[in-house]
């Protein structure tokens, strides 16, 4: 070919990605520090930083002398916030993954019923008093429930490598209904304490997070996120349709199975100790895609940060909006996510001229 070769112009998306990533990181740090200092025992940001540094053996003199400060920050508030960050990142990444394999930007763990499936699995382990894997029992059952749900949605709703909006949402309604019935049955069977636990799952809450929970959630989220990063370039090719992805060298069947298992892994990690926190996987990837475009690797990076930030902010609001009360965080994310979802539906309908 004899044409003069001109390099393709840069689109400015790379620089926007850098700015967004740095912005999200800063916002995340500020939110975490403010959140650690907020509550019945208030601390200034300097005192919070002092306590954190002292925990790493760096003495700055900023930290208050009272041992209470250490207990409140490190023993109560920090595990709760860390769990929130992990759950937010897990949900956002699971959203990106599901949207990629469904070829549909409306897929989300809550909307299509994967979270409900995981909650049902967790509730079943509790109601029937199964403790086969020690402290891993609840996450293991949540994994089984989530995997069953995501497999069902996947097998029922896809045709020809794509999923129509209507089919996806209707399948989600059905899966949510089945899981809801199961949860109701567990509530009926359970004792007072397991009932409370099931209600807690349905609302979603970070209350009562312990470091022991994080020991379990952290590796699950890490593994899931690393897999998600590793397959992100192949997910770009998925956007061209399955046949074309295969023509470009992607082992489509294998990738599909890996992504589905990863989604179940991330959702079970999120649901096992925090319950159903909806719409994070829908809202965060969407906003990031609007800002930096659909390429999956930068989308994963910013969604990890954005998901963590969203939950950190929501949790701060949940703890402080009503004095002396702890609102369920799932209620808050649904309050923001529900209208956002409606707006997306309206926009999708207007763009495609119908339900497509």
């Amino acid at each position: 070919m004899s044409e003069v070769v001109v390099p393709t112009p840069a689109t400015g998306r790379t620089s926007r990605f850098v700015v967004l990533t740095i912005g999200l990181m800063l916002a995340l740090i500020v939110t975490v520090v403010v959140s650690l200092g907020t509550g019945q025992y208030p601390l200034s940001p300097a005192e919070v930083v002092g306590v954190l540094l002292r925990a790493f053996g760096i003495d700055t003199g900023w930290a208050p002398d009272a041992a209470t400060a250490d207990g409140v920050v490190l023993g109560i508030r920090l595990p709760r916030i860390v769990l929130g960050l992990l759950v937010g990142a897990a949900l956002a990444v699971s959203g990106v993954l599901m949207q990629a394999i469904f070829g549909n930007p409306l897929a989300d763990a809550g909307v299509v019923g994967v979270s409900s499936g995981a909650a049902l699995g967790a509730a079943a382990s509790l109601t029937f008093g199964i403790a086969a894997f020690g402290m891993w029992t609840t996450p293991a059952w949540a994994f089984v429930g989530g995997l069953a749900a995501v497999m069902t949605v996947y097998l029922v709703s896809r045709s020809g490598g794509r999923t129509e909006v209507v089919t996806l949402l209707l399948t989600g309604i059905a899966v949510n209904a089945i899981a809801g019935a199961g949860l109701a049955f567990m509530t009926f069977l359970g004792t007072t304490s397991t009932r409370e636990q099931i209600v807690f799952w349905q609302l979603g809450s970070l209350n009562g997070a312990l470091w022991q929970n994080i020991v379990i959630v952290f590796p699950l989220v890490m593994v899931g996120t690393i897999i998600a990063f590793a397959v992100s370039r192949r997910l770009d090719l998925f956007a061209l349709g399955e046949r074309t992805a295969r023509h470009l060298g992607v082992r489509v069947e294998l990738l599909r199975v890996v992504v589905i298992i990863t989604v179940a892994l991330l959702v079970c990690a999120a649901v096992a100790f925090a319950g159903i926190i909806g719409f994070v996987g829908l809202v965060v990837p969407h906003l990031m895609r609007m800002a930096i475009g659909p390429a999956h690797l930068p989308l994963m990076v910013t969604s990890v940060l954005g998901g963590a930030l969203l939950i950190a902010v929501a949790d701060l609001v949940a703890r402080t909006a009503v004095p002396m009360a702890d609102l369920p965080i799932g209620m808050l994310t649904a309050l923001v996510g529900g209208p956002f979802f409606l707006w997306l539906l309206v926009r999708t309908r207007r763009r495609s001229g119908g339900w497509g």
Partner: protein
Amino acid sequence: MTPRLEAFGVTVVPDGARHPILSEASLQVFAGEVHALVGPNGAGKSTLFGVIAGDTAATAGEVRLDGRSLGGIRPLDLARERAVLLQQNAVSFPFTVSQIVEMGRTPWARTPQEDEDAEAVASAMAATDIQVLAARTIPSLSGGERARAALARVLAQRTDILLLDEPTAALDLRHQEDVLAIARRRAAEGAAVAIVLHDLNAALSSADRVTLLSGGRVVASGVPADVLTAAAIEEVYGQAVDVFPHPVTGVPLVVPRR
């Protein structure tokens, strides 16, 4: 000369169907040639195309690429040997045109050919006349522009086997001619090009070899002027035609008798 891509007696019976939609079809695509697949709607062109692209499993028969069975080649190795353009080129998310074309380079990631990435993308976009669209997103394009972006992606893959399913269908006259010229040029550079066409005149003027299908069978295969005779076209399409030489080039022209 051995063919680069070869189908032997391929029969396809869809799941649950009694009758094959493709019977005993054979095809040989040679390096340096444009090979057109033509035939009326439902003749089995797309099925045969799907089989040689590796998408559709043959119930009987075999497809070989350079003598190796197609099913035994890893998808990634296959992607470095042949590129495929389908009729449907919908994109799920608003990727830009340049991102789509860059996806054609994915099979070459972490190989020495990776150094050619920028140049391959730029020349593919130049050949398909889409440089000005580089920063546009796919949903903002017209059907013809999307088809050209998809073709650019296929060209950027830089393989010496090209499989193109009706690449001219959505295009205006000039871009149709551009695509046929690209196919000819790639063949002149040594590529084996298989191309599904509806336009018999395009097949007559651009192909080195034509395979005519009808009712799931190969009716004839050979030099275009020998295969696409008035009698054969009338027989297969059920439409009377006149075939006469172009006054300047002498290439046969097909005109329906009205």
